[in-house]
């Protein structure tokens, strides 16, 4: 195997067909987990139902370990996998604002889509809020462009930042995820 199978030079129709199929899998998995339900999602933040963290961290583990081992076996070219760039300050502030919006809406941009697909009107309204929010942010962004572009570090990874081997950081994240799972189970037991 010589992955990524569709290089950047692949035809647009092939890439977009893959986008559609991958999206179907994404939406299916989120709905199966129950994350189309705002009340179930938000219960995460009241210690009642820790599904969000369980789903997020088990998915993260599978993908992280898959990428790590496929690259190690020489089947996946890591340099051809797009790592989103790091902008430290905008991402810190963005994360804070996003988190407040998440508890207010009860859905995130991906799960809002699934919520809408299952017939929930509140899901559609979150989509509308996201669209209007992007229009407003985009129109005002030229005023804050210097902050928006600040603290740019490119495709910056934890192994580079911590100066540790890739495999050591992967193992560290596995341990962190296991701690998250144990804590999540305890919290659910206490709140029952």
């Amino acid at each position, binding site marked *: 195997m010589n992955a990524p199978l569709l290089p950047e030079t692949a035809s647009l129709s092939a890439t977009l067909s893959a986008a559609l199929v991958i999206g179907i899998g994404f939406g299916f998995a989120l709905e199966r987990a129950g994350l189309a339900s705002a009340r179930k999602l938000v219960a995460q933040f009241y210690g009642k139902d820790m599904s969000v963290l369980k789903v997020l961290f088990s998915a993260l583990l599978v993908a992280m370990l898959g990428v790590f081992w496929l690259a190690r076996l020489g089947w996946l070219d890591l340099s051809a996998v797009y790592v989103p760039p790091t902008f430290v300050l905008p991402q810190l502030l963005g994360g804070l604002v996003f988190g407040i919006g998440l508890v207010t809406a009860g859905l995130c941009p991906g799960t809002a889509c699934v919520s809408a697909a299952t017939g929930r009107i509140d899901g559609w309204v979150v989509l509308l809020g996201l669209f*209007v929010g992007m229009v407003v942010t985009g129109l005002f962004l030229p005023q804050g462009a210097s902050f928006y572009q600040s603290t740019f570090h490119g495709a910056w990874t934890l192994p580079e930042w911590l100066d540790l081997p890739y495999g050591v950081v992967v193992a560290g994240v596995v341990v962190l995820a296991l701690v998250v799972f144990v804590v999540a189970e305890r919290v659910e037991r206490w709140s029952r």
Partner: protein
Amino acid sequence: MNTAGASRPYADPYLAGIGLGLVLLTAFVVVGRGLGASGAYASTAAGTVALVAPGKATASPLFSHYLSGQGPWLEWQSVELVGVLVGGWLSAALAGRLSVSIERSSSVGSQQRLILAFGGGLLMAVGAALARGCTSGQALTAGALLSVGGWLFLGTAFAAAYAVAPLLRKVWQ
């Protein structure tokens, strides 16, 4: 479609998470990029503003990003999100979980719930625009690739959500 009350229980969160992780891994292997959602709203906004006020669209660092290449209407994440709608609908249909409703707790009215949904969406758009991604593009995808920014976003988003959750307790209980 099943009748009301006959819907099946949700999947085990770990199993659903493994399924989601395999979808993400497939994305890495097939197209060399992960999942995302907020980019679809950003590109749709970019395309809309470009139709109404092209100068304003190209002047914005958020919009201009989506106006080059294949253009804002054929953005990868937008097509992927159409897939999310289809996959979410399919899963819910198979489990008898389709119903037109407004999901809210008994302590808030429908109108209040929709105002909060809209406001929450607005805030998430501001946050995702600044962070260049959301729970899918940053926390999950960038997180799995061990991006520093992805983990910063994951940490601050959850910290902020836990910090404001007590203030919104009445909304959800």
